[in-house]
């Protein structure tokens, strides 16, 4: 069900003589896995995500999804942004229907919309105007809109960063569990290390000038994760160090870590 992603030697410049924004990126993301990308502002996270979505073509290298090179946007590879981008002239249901209508999947529209609204807990607000929803509810509508088209992959660009801590945490847990239930491949860009650790099976630390993968860390903690658990705290410290290193050291002296530093995962499952 989920898509496998291959990032295949991507280097990118926005203009032929411009600065190199991304350099020699290489990574395989297995079908159905959840990846979190963190890194300093301007290191090219959004740029990379747009490439995975087919909204931007790299100047060198390519993205392959399920083994096929990406050349354009595709409804099964869905991107969610920091702003939900809901259409204010449509109500909640109509917004959820939008993806299906754009992709021409209009059979059993009503049933699918109801199912999605149920899933994100907005069944009772289905006729509401977008302007009358809270930020968190709006992001839920956007999530329902994305899920309705049964995507193989969801790309999230800081989708929760404008929300309060409580709503953010709830949505992190929900999105993460929905994605695992449905086997959807998830790539999340975030500024928030806790968010990365709440949702990612693997956390990738990027550095800037040019943007590279500095450190790739597999997180062997079971879901739902408990931020209070000592193992979580320990991994967070480690990740913080790597993040700091990515900010401080220039790209040339990078040391790409591939190891996972995890204490006994079984123990954490019960924590």
């Amino acid at each position, binding site marked *: 069900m989920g898509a496998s992603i291959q990032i295949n030697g991507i280097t990118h410049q926005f203009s032929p003589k411009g600065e190199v924004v991304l350099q020699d990126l290489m990574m395989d993301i297995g079908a159905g896995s959840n990846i979190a990308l963190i890194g300093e502002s301007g290191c090219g996270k959004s740029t990379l995500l747009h490439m995975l979505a087919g909204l931007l073509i790299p100047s060198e290298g390519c993205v392959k999804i399920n083994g096929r090179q990406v050349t354009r946007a595709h409804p099964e590879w869905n991107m969610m*942004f920091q702003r939900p*981008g809901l*259409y204010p002239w*449509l109500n909640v249901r109509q917004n959820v229907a*939008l993806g299906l209508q754009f*992709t021409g999947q209009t059979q059993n529209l009503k049933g699918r919309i109801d199912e999605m609204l149920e899933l994100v807990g907005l069944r009772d607000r289905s006729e509401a105007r977008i302007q009358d929803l809270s930020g968190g509810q709006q992001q839920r509508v956007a999530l329902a809109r994305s899920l309705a088209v049964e995507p193989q992959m969801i790309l999230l660009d800081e989708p929760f960063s404008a929300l309060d801590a409580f709503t953010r945490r709830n949505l992190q847990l929900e999105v993460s569990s929905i994605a695992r239930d449905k086997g959807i491949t998830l790539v999340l860009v975030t500024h928030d290390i806790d968010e990365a650790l709440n949702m990612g099976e693997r956390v990738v630390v990027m550095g800037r000038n040019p943007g590279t993968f500095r450190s790739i860390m597999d997180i062997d903690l079971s879901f739902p994760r408990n931020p209070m658990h000592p193992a979580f705290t320990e991994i967070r410290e480690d990740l913080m160090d790597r993040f700091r290193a990515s900010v401080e050291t220039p790209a040339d002296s990078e040391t790409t870590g591939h190891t996972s530093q995890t204490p006994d995962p079984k123990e954490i499952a019960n924590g």
Partner: protein
Amino acid sequence: MTATTTTPATAGGVEIGHYARRISENLGYPLLGLAILLGFWWLGGYLIASNPSTQAFSAFAPESALPRAWELLWSGTLWDTVHPSLSRIGLGLFWATLVAVPVGILVGSLPVMQKITSFPFQLLRMVSPLAWMPIAVLAFETWDGAIVFLLFMASVWPILFSTAFAVQRIDPMYFKVARNFGASPLASLRRLVIPAVAPDILAGFRLALGIAWVVLVPAEYLGVTSGLGYAINDARDILAYDLLAALVLVIGVIGYVLDAIVVALIRYVGWQGT
């Protein structure tokens, strides 16, 4: 005891006071404005009547014009006068909308089109619609056609400009969402662009209607033998100043009603605002 019996009465009094205030706010001010206008009209009529050199026009005053308007309303001939005017303005606006909306969308979505058309469109827009009259008369076989063309020239610009401007202001995020779902250009047009700019199209339409309605009367002075403009000209020729004033009143009222209809429509399709 007395206290309990007076309480509902007081509450009722407050209630009535509240409604009175709302009615006076919704209706009182417009009525006051109307009364002032009537006062000026009456004053104008009085001045005309008291000056020997203008005395002949004294029927222009409300005392004679208002009864005449009343008579006009119930005589059944009013519709014969109004109908041709309405159909001309309807046709003019119809063609203007048909041309202005697609062109406006094109200009708004393609920066190149915007650059190319900006100068000529601004230039044409500044030409008084009535200045096209000689050309219109040459180009159209009938006077009716010429008048519709003038109304078209008067109303096409506001619709075109407000459509183009609205398209440019659409949140780029909305396009990103559409592209993300692989929406075809046609689907984006139907589900994104048109609903996004519909309120602005109507706002442009409202401006256009206002201009066209103003242009209509002088346009109907020429050639045609029907319509409000013709009727005004005719009333002047037969020195029926009370009829002339009554027609001016009719023009104002119809213009107001047409505008109110469009305003209601704008409210209906409007999605902007909290």
